[in-house]
């Protein structure tokens, strides 16, 4: 789905030792697999983002196993302790096997 555009909010700079707040959002329908097509009565197959991972310089900082009970356009907020300058990479994994990524650089001074 081309419309699954991730959005991430990370402070550009932080002081060493500060705990920063990271907000992420991806547009996605998060079809639960519980709903039925109103016309045909057939169940609509599940299609959700099932995994979210955040890494800093290649090391996992935070991750979420996502279930269908997470709302459409999943929003995830979490924290990280800023120790050094580096790259934050965010990955969302779709049920269909596709994954979406976003990257942000954090400068620590």
């Amino acid at each position, binding site marked *: 789905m081309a419309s699954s555009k991730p959005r991430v909010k990370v402070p550009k700079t932080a002081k060493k030792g500060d705990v920063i707040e990271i907000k992420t959002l991806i547009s996605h329908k998060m079809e*639960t697999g519980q709903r039925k097509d109103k016309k045909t009565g057939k169940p609509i197959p599940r299609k959700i983002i099932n995994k979210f991972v955040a890494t800093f310089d290649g*090391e*996992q900082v935070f*991750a*979420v196993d996502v279930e269908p009970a997470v*709302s459409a356009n999943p*929003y*995830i907020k979490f*924290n990280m302790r800023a120790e050094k300058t580096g790259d934050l990479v965010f990955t969302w994994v779709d049920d269909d096997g596709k994954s979406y990524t976003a990257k942000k650089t954090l400068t620590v001074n």
Partner: protein
Amino acid sequence: MKQITRRQALSICGCALTVAAIGVRPAFAANDHKEVISKFTGGKDVKEGKVSLELPEIAENGNTVPLSVSVESPMTKDNYVKRVVVVADANPRAGVATFHFSPASGVAEASTRMRLAQTQNVIAVAEMSDGAFYMAKRQVKVTIGGCGG
């Protein structure tokens, strides 16, 4: 007055029973939340405390209910929160999300938005790095359920 035949009587009873069954079911829809929690803890004891759940008391729209969970912990290499599972006890399926933290998280706090099909309890269970488990539970009253269609 026409006498009711045996066949008619049976069909009336059948209808009444069906209505009763449909009416009762959603109110006591027990799901797999106990299994999800015991799988998470491996059957170990879970203590109350340390975990706090931030949820609205009344959710007008069950499609998007803001949820925040935090766990008291110094979040050092030797003492941190490993994982937190969030379950809802009357959704079609109990699991909501499992958050994986690390010492680099700084604080064990996460927020998201969840679907709630009806008024129910939301439970969070945290696994600490020393193998202990803590939990918190909160009820959310839902005005419009979030599993329509």
